[in-house]
């Protein structure tokens, strides 16, 4: 049996919305009852369209947000209710790579401080070793030693993202949530950063939770892929199975939306229609029923169970396997 590193159980994250002094407060159900397991050394991709809650889920897992409900079990410990000093310990094991390489680096700090600050804050190195360690890390991330004195504005987007990765690695974590790390980069730079991240994974024995909206990026880097829709994971399986045999109609629609370079191949399915519903008033029953081409009465009333239909292939659809 593979070693579990992270288990997410029924995690919810709701944000209150203030609409007025005398009106009933509403909630945005950003993450709504998500469960999955991650194993050591794997990369789990998380895809979904904008606003489906994938970033919120990632940030809840690293405890940037406190979950509204549910458990996050990291290395056999429930971290979902941890507070300040315990969280500080957790930071050494779990890190986050940010999406925006521009706003995620303090413009007034040089690379030396950006990457090294956390090492000093956690007292991982002495002041004497510190500079060498910073150079080690940034060189592993594809930067040069003379970059340490430079400021973020002197770098390109790809280089900035490398600094972001170096900063996350400085604490020597085991688990990294990568929140759309390449979506702000040019395609040519994307692959460089992705390959670097893959290399670092083997070298440092990392596990990634890789969030993206780009199906080809996720396919490239992930071992397994989860598909999110409106705050829930609706399908989760190995990447080959997902791309070859999607079971959920939403996944099928996503696969159909991937541009096909071969003009002779005919698309099996029409692209998905309609808009993603509001996550304040989520649809009853199966959340996808408003857009699903195969919708039946039961879909509008009963929430489909997230079940293991085949081995290692989880799906939340009443008619999975029948469509």
């Amino acid at each position, binding site marked *: 049996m593979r070693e579990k590193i992270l288990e997410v159980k029924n995690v919810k994250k709701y944000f209150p919305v203030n609409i007025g002094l005398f009106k009933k407060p509403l909630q945005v159900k950003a993450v709504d009852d998500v469960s999955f397991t991650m194993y050591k050394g794997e990369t789990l991709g998380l895809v979904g369209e904008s606003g489906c809650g994938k970033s919120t889920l990632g940030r809840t897992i690293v405890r940037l947000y406190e979950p509204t409900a549910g458990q996050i079990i990291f290395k056999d410990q429930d971290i979902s209710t941890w507070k300040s000093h315990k969280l500080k310990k957790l*930071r050494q094991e779990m890190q986050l790579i940010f999406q925006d390489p521009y706003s995620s680096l303090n413009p007034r*700090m040089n690379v030396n401080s950006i990457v090294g600050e956390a090492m000093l804050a956690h007292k991982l190195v002495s002041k004497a070793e510190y500079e*060498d360690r910073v150079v080690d890390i940034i060189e592993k991330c594809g930067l040069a030693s003379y970059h340490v004195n430079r400021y973020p504005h002197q770098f390109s987007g790809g280089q900035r993202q490398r600094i972001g990765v170096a900063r996350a690695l400085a604490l020597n974590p085991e688990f990294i949530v990568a929140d759309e790390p390449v979506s702000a980069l040019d395609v040519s730079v994307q692959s460089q950063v992705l390959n670097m991240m893959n290399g670092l994974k083997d070298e440092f024995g990392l596990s990634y939770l890789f969030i993206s909206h780009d199906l080809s990026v996720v396919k490239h880097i992930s071992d397994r892929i989860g598909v999110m829709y409106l705050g829930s994971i609706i399908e989760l399986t190995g990447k080959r199975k997902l791309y070859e045999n999607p079971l959920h109609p939403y996944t099928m629609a996503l696969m159909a939306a991937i541009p096909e370079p071969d003009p002779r191949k005919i698309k099996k399915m029409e692209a998905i229609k309609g808009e993603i519903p509001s996550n304040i008033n989520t649809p009853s029953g199966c959340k996808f029923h408003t857009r699903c081409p195969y919708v039946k009465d039961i879909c509008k009333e009963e929430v489909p169970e997230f079940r293991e239909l085949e081995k290692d292939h989880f799906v939340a659809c009443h008619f999975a396997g029948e469509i």
Partner: protein
Amino acid sequence: MSEIKNDQTTTTTPRLKPEGPWKIAWNRFKKNKVALVGGTGFLLIVLGVIVIPMIFSFNLWRTMELDAGTAISSTVLDSLDEKGVEIDEEFEETFFNRFDEVVRQSHFEDFIEQNELDDLYTQEDINQLFAGEAVGTGRIIRETIFVNLRAHGFELENSDQPPSRENWLGTDRQGRDVMFRLFYGGRISLIVGLLSATLTVSLGTVVGGVSGYYGGKLDAFLMRFAEIVQSIPLLPMMISISAAMRWVPSERTLLVVVFVVGILSWPGLARVVRGQILSLREQEFMQATEILGISDVSRIFRHLLPNVLAYIIVSATLGMGGAILLEAGLSFLGLGVQPPMPSWGNMIYLANNSTVFREYLWMWIPPGVMIMLTVVSVNLLGEGLRDALDPKEIR
């Protein structure tokens, strides 16, 4: 982190010693001509107001503590006392009142000519005392007055003189050297500007920082409070406070001005700092500090403050210029620094006399020019500092 091996450290590119951000800022500042001019100008003004008054004779310094009226009346009283005149309280009171009125309101030479002094002393009791001396009372008193005033640095017979070799910027209504008062007054004006800008900046930064960082109800409370302070009309408030603080001795009125300006002008900066911190707090690099487990102190002082520093510096310099102007305005209205202590503002105040305004230009133009030069150089300096401290600014 045992996986990292040290053998990978490259030796191909020599590692440069990290260049501190202050060094970089200084290098950038040096290249900015305009800012250098502003900085040099400000430095010269500061040096000037410190050094130049020291060159003048000690006597002039005493004119800062006394004005002519007080000097004359007390010396005359002293000399009368020496001659054995019995001075009761009633006499003293009428004497002071009369004297003050006469000396302050009219030109001193006119006053002598009008012989009002003789008038004053022809009262019977004084006449008897001076009778044996066979000298006119008026003359005695006049001589006493001039001798004593000269000892105090006043040269009344030398008043209203245009610039000359002795007095480069001429003399004022009471025969005091304008250049000396200009630079001595510069000290007062700069101190007022510096202190009230410091007060404004510290209050504004602390209130704005706390408000933006902690947010919530505290933020709402502090911001409503700032709005209340902001809604107080500055001038009427100043006039009331200055009037209420009349009991403060004249050499300390400058502290009243500092206090009033500082207390009333922080909300502007507080709002700017709060807005900046609110927007910075949502930036991903602040979330990154949380994820990295950086302490609150470090987050505030290493991450937030350096990013609002540019605004604080600009606001501090503009605030300093503004405070100098405000002090000048208040003094011009007779509510700021009180004479005999000079400030640029109350020196310009002389120009509300139409004779001075039309004919004695040397009395009020120099302080006006000094105010202008100071405010302009401080603002240029501030802008230069802001550019130098902004790493995004590349020249």
